[in-house]
């Protein structure tokens, strides 16, 4: 199958046709949405199976001239970095749609599912696009459906939150658009300009130091807001609190990754000097995010806000791993993105399941749920442990590799032996806020009004089990995944640290 990646982008769109036709019948809507996302998931796994492990370069590439006069192409492909993020996306979308079909969405189901399918197009496209313009289109395409999902199906303060989400993200991505135009103009003379990644990498030797400094800032701000890095994170807790459960799963699980992915895919290979110039700031902000996110998580009263702030801390490990510019850090960062997708996605799923039953999200209103929900307690406990980085579960592998990469990274003021131990404190803090939350929610005496609430349903289990399996597998046998990531990641690190180019740009 030669058009595999295009098919991945088209299938959710194709699903819209029956969705519109059967929009009046909720049952049919659910079936269409579930089937579409299931086919998409299966196809993404097929893509993974087609992928040749051990090759660094892009595979399954498709390239069609789109706006030839401008040198803009429809250009897609996968390498070791994106090939795992795509199935992660399709799985989390499938789970979101599956969970939403269980009755959590009370109105406008057809519109809701439409938003999810469109969202999936955007998310999958972001990880596949190899042309900056195409990437930008998908990057923005993710925004609209999520804006609607929060704004229409969200909680009481949904308008404020969704507007905040959009304005923050839009501010970043517009800066990126400026950056893209700048890169386009700098990529060559009129007629030979391009936005295709491989050709831009060829052309990057002509990017001056000044140019790289500013363009990296433009791209970096867009990605930093998306991730989000401190101090651009305050849209995240609000958006999560108001978003419906499935929206939170996809927002935390996939949308944030677009930021980290953007750094690895475009910012690092294209602007090595910009990377060097901004490196101290990025390392500092990453470590601040790890510690600050954890400290603020500890005092949250709202369960969803706690998980949201913990995301800030976990994504701090991602940026830290990326910017220490070595293999261990980079592979750790990519693993951390996957792990965070599965684990935090699961945590939001569990918070949502709990909320559907008790209608309470304030930690103080909960307690003793372990008495009535043994299955829920066990599974939620596993994800909490994965999130706090227990060896044997997935969180540990990524965080340990990032820490290892940080320790051996000499390129910041004070050196890796300063930043590494500092970041490692985040691991202690994670145990504090997560276990404290867990005991307040699950342990203690049960309230009488909760006593008859049922444990997890089959549907909820069906949503949780795949994530559980991945959490364990990625912790126990991470090596097959590392083998997929490593060659491509290695290539990105070499592109970003090419001493000749950095010197040339500096001159």
């Amino acid at each position, binding site marked *: 199958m030669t058009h595999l990646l295009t098919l991945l982008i088209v299938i959710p769109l194709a699903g819209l046709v029956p969705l519109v036709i059967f929009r009046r019948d909720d049952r049919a809507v659910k079936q269409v949405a579930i089937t579409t996302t299931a086919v998409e998931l299966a196809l993404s796994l097929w893509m993974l199976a087609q992928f040749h492990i051990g090759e660094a370069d892009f595979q399954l590439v498709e390239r069609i001239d789109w706006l030839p006069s401008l040198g803009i192409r429809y250009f897609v492909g996968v390498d070791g970095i994106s090939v795992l993020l795509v199935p992660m996306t399709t799985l989390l979308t499938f789970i979101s749609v599956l969970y939403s079909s269980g009755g959590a969405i009370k109105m406008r189901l057809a519109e809701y599912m439409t938003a999810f399918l469109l969202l999936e197009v955007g998310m999958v496209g972001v990880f596949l696009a190899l042309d900056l313009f195409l990437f930008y289109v998908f990057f923005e395409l993710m925004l609209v459906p999520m804006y609607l999902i929060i704004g229409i199906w969200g909680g009481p303060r949904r308008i404020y939150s969704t507007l905040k989400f959009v304005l923050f993200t839009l501010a970043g991505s517009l800066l990126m658009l400026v950056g893209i135009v700048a890169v386009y103009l700098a990529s060559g003379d009129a007629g030979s300009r391009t936005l295709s990644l491989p050709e831009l990498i060829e052309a990057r030797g002509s990017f001056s130091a000044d140019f790289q400094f500013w363009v990296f800032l433009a791209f970096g701000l867009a990605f930093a807001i998306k991730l989000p890095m401190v101090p651009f994170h305050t849209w995240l807790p609000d958006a999560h609190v108001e978003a419906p459960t499935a929206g939170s799963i996809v927002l935390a699980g996939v949308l944030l990754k677009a930021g980290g992915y953007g750094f690895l895919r475009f910012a690092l290979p294209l602007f090595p000097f910009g990377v060097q110039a901004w490196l101290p700031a990025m390392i500092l902000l990453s470590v601040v995010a790890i510690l600050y996110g954890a400290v603020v998580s500890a005092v949250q009263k709202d369960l969803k806000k706690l998980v949201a702030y913990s995301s800030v801390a976990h994504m701090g490990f991602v940026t830290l791993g990326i910017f220490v510019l070595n293999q*261990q850090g980079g592979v750790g960062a990519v693993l951390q993105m996957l792990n965070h997708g599965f684990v935090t996605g699961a945590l939001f799923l569990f918070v949502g399941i709990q909320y559907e039953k008790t209608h309470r999200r304030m930690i103080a209103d909960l307690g003793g749920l372990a008495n009535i929900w043994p299955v829920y307690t066990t599974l939620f406990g596993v994800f909490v442990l994965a999130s706090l980085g227990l060896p*044997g579960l997935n969180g540990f592998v990524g965080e340990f590799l990032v820490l290892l990469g940080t320790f051996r990274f000499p390129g910041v003021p004070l050196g890796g032996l300063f930043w590494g131990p500092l970041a*490692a404190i985040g691991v202690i803090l994670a145990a504090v806020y997560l276990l404290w939350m867990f005991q307040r929610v699950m342990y203690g005496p049960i309230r009488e009004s909760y006593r008859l609430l049922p444990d997890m349903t089959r549907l909820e289990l069906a949503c949780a089990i795949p994530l559980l399996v991945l959490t364990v597998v990625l912790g126990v046998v991470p090596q097959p995944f590392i083998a997929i990531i490593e060659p491509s990641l290695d290539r990105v690190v070499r592109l970003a640290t090419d001493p000749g180019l950095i010197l040339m740009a500096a001159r």
Partner: protein
Amino acid sequence: MIEHVWLIPAFPLAAFLVNGLFGRRWLGHLTGLIGSAAIGASAIVAIGVFFEVLAGHSRTIVPLTIAGIRYQWIAVGDFSVDVSALVDPLSAVMMLVVTVVSFLIFVYSNGYMAHDHGFYRFFTWLSLFVFAMLILVMADNYLLLFVGWEGVGLCSYLLIGYWFERPEPYFAAKKAFVMNRIGDWGYTIGIIVIFLVFGSLNFGDVFRRLDESAPEQGVLTLICVALFFGATGKSAQLPLHSWLPDAMEGPTPVSALIHAATMVTAGVYLVARSTPLFTAAGSALTLVAVVGTLTAIFAATIALVQVDIKRVMAYSTVSQLGYMFLALGVGAPIAAIFHLATHAFFKALLFLGSGSVIHAMDNVQDMRRYGGLRRKLPWTYWTMLIAGGALSAIPPLAGFWSKDEIVGAAFTNGYPLLWGVGVLTGALTAFYVTRALWLTFHGEPRDHHLYEHAHESPPVMVLPLAALAVGSALVGFIGVPPEGGFIHGFLKPALEARGGEVAEATRSPALVTALGLPATSVAAGLIGIAIALSMYVRHRPDPAAVARAAGAYYRILVNKYYVDELYDHRFVDLARAFAGAAWAFDIHIIDGLANRLGWLLSLSGTGLRRLQTGVVGNYALSIVAGLLLVLGAYGAYAAGVIKP
């Protein structure tokens, strides 16, 4: 047998999976049987492995292979860690102790937990614990060891908080986990620096390259101090000791297995395993010795005045672990492991015996309500008496041989001050053991209602007591004669420092010292016992009068030097205030700025918004505004920055 060494952890893992998946619905009380059988099978394999090591396989590395493929856990660039086991005398001893003691405690638990509604949960987690503990002692590298290290910490957390309906257990559980995590911070730093210096985390590679490259002293000291910090967390040494007494909120078999016999010795095992590193970084060893000694006497003084029988045993454990670190610190790792083994038997027995008493006394743990129980619980009494004798280091019981060797090594290796403190602690130890046993089993019953209903435990609990009593009496003989016993010859190859030089003291002391040192220790123990008997049997002096006379110091001891107040209130309050301030900063400063910016922008939008219908319009509006912004920015940008 050695090639099948992976069966040892595989059995408990299987028991964990079976009990965890099917226990609640289908297996019920069968989970106890399954767990016990699995650990029994592990013990048999461990015995087999032990004898093979004894027969001369002094160092074998057994990689785990799955369908013929070597199990590589994590490998990125020059970093690589395999799942593979190191079978040498040290790990063989540890596997043997862990499986045998675990097996006895599993059997006992079938009786002790029989009426608990979470029976399956207990045996699920206890099986997982044994699995993790075995990974810890079998690992051939620091990272895999860390998997077991954290795994046992998790099981400890789950089992301390086993009765999660009440607040005390789950607070104690969280405290244990968090304090362990603080120690783990040191461990993480230690192993990462080890990798940076030696390029590997395999014990063999690290110690070989230590010989070849002789790294800087400062780096070695950093590594050892960081590792030791990890060890203080897991093994409840100062300043991270205070979680262990609270951990007694867990069921008593858990206290016996995890918080006395096995898990808390992991720190001792870690330092012993790293002997070459510690020997090369000399000053770190002194730190280990001093911390160990201080912890030993610190905890022993607290144990003097506690009234909860399990708390006495808990502080006693902290104190005895201090002895083990003293041994490691003065260059006698063999004595440390020897004491670890004997302690596993007699302290497990003391806990299980306490459990038998608690079981008989309707879950009352306050010794002031006990008394005269030897007539009701003869088996418990006699077995605990043997264990108490062993803990007091009365010859020829097990504790005598191992503890005497530690204290003696402190003296002969040139630490007379630490020796003095060790001897004094020995007297204190004998005192509090005698006090606890007397208050429990002798005198007149002080709570007649409880006493009337007391009854000896069923055979399933008494038999393990008897078996452990035999161990407490006899295990010491593997170390006879001192410095030349079976255990010394057996462990020597595993604990050799670099250059083949044996870390154990090889100087043979003069005859006067050789006899004088044990005599001093025994005399100290007897004095402790005598004072305790005099105080509690004949009230000369009366304990209450002594407490009044000691005044402030007595109150300090009862309140455990106020460490809990300092940690649980001062530190935690401070941290909470800080976190609250951080959140306020987040809301008011960071988010406040963003909102003010948004407010400014929306001023211009408010008027236009009336033209739009519904929320979708806002988005379109943003897009338009954004496009204008872009075009403007682009104009300015292209003119300014990009050079033609």
